[in-house]
């Protein structure tokens, strides 16, 4: 595909990084072997989003995908999992700068993050940075611990178990 890498039959896979940057922020980065306008297109056309948003390996399938990518436009993804009832992921786009920047809210709960995705093109490749800002430390901690909504019973069960285990480990 790329003349610079003649010796390699397939282009090298680019690395994905995930980092908790602060008490309220998560940052995901990845480089794509294509221009920003193309990567941006894949994030903004529902028929393209649909093709990569729900990878098979997660066991979750996308039931519907609507995205009206304009300032104030709404998105709504509904997904299903064999072990639970369908769930929706929805919110609004609050900034749309073609080929360079997308910002959306997550309106499922008051603890939803504001997500900013930037597309930075360099030499035909695009660095994508996805920044999620949660309203509070507790909101991100909650997302990580799974304290609210979703599957309260299972998580309560887990919490209980962790307390038991923590106590017994503490003793030894």
């Amino acid at each position, binding site marked *: 595909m790329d003349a610079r890498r003649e010796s390699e039959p397939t282009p090298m*896979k*680019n690395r*994905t990084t*995930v*980092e*908790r940057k602060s008490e309220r922020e*998560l940052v*995901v980065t*990845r480089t*794509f*072997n*294509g221009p920003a306008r*193309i*990567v941006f*297109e*894949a994030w903004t056309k529902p028929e*393209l989003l649909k*093709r*990569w*948003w729900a*990878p098979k*390996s*997660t*066991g*979750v399938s996308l039931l519907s995908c609507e995205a009206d990518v304009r300032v104030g436009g709404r998105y709504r*993804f509904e*997904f299903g*999992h064999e*072990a*639970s009832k369908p*769930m*929706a*992921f929805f919110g609004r786009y609050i900034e749309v700068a073609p080929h360079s920047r997308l910002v959306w809210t*997550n309106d*499922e*709960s008051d*603890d*939803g*993050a504001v*997500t900013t995705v930037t597309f930075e093109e360099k030499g035909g490749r695009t660095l994508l940075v*996805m920044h*999620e800002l949660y309203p509070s430390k507790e909101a991100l901690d909650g*997302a*990580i*611990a*799974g304290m609210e*909504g*979703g*599957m309260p019973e*299972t*998580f309560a*069960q*887990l919490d209980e*178990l*962790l307390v*038991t*285990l923590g106590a*017994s*480990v503490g003793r*030894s």
Partner: protein
Amino acid sequence: MVQYVRACFDASFAALSDVTRRGVLEQLGRADASITDLAEKFHMTLTGMKKHVGVLEQAGLVTTEKVGRVRTCKLGLRRLEEEAAWIERYHQLWDARFDGLDKVVEELKRKEKVNGRKKRE
């Protein structure tokens, strides 16, 4: 997003839905044990216990190590480093998504090349 990731977690937490498996975790919280020990303790066949341990292992809750003929089980890292495990899970999700996105990008690039002369300004 949060809910989506949570759905992906289902598999791991399903491991905890079983009384025996919770008992095994509690037991391992006290001390490491071999599969044979665990099978005896829970009055089960070796095969049955192997299955339970396998589920816990897949969920990252237990690790096992074979020394000689004995397979020893101990608590996995997920419990100790819940946040690190979550980040890892989140990483896996986005990595899988981006692999799919790579394919879409390649396809759009090819299309653009073909249509290039007609469409580009």
